[in-house]
């Protein structure tokens, strides 16, 4: 099983972003090295929807540059599911751009936010451990 190592602070920032955008889906990118997240880059959801997201390409470019400048790279993407579980949808799988990325879901369905991470490769979803640094 894979793993995503990430600090509580970064997890909190993803959850805060998801709550800020509620009821719309929030999205952003993870910067870091392989299995270790070092930064989160909130992005605009161009779809402005409670059911889908399209990560703003210019925000992607800026995150890519910022992570490279910090000596890292983009290692994954996060987005929120406002009314459903923290599990990838058919759309998430169909549009997963990079098999090397971590796909983090923040669900706001329950009383407390749920954060889970997955690998998506060739249509196969594999959950990975989220380990706090």
């Amino acid at each position, binding site marked *: 099983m894979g793993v995503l190592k990430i600090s509580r602070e970064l997890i909190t920032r993803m959850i805060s972003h998801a709550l800020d955008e509620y009821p719309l889906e929030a999205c952003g990118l993870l910067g870091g090295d392989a299995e270790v997240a070092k930064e989160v880059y909130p992005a605009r959801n161009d779809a402005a929807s409670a059911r*889908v997201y399209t990560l703003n*390409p210019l925000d992607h*470019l800026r995150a890519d540059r910022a992570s490279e400048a910090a000596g890292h790279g*983009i290692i994954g*993407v996060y987005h929120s599911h406002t009314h459903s579980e923290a599990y990838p*949808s*058919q*759309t998430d799988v169909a549009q997963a*751009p990079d098999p*090397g990325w971590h796909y983090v879901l923040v669900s706001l369905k329950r009383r407390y936010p749920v954060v889970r991470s997955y690998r998506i490769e060739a249509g196969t979803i594999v959950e990975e451990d989220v380990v706090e640094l």
Partner: protein
Amino acid sequence: MTVEIRIPTVLRPAVGGQSVVKADGETIGELLASLAGEYPAVAGQVIGSDGAMHRFVNIYLNDDDVRYLSKLDTKVADGDVVSILPAVAGGSDCLLHRQ
């Protein structure tokens, strides 16, 4: 002229693991043709069979999305940086599994 092209992680295996490559051309289309000539595995992932930009790819010339310039006919100049980025999208519209 020779322009720097930034390669996303998903395409790096197709260019020998490099994050940045140089390519020659006067337009975005010529640069990408040059890139595909040197690294054939890139070709179908950036340009579709219809000769247009793949819809799951965003291409930036410096800070500008070339879709809002002249697309593949966009002129490039010395010192420009071209960035290829995968389109990132998804959503909760249809869950595969409920827990």
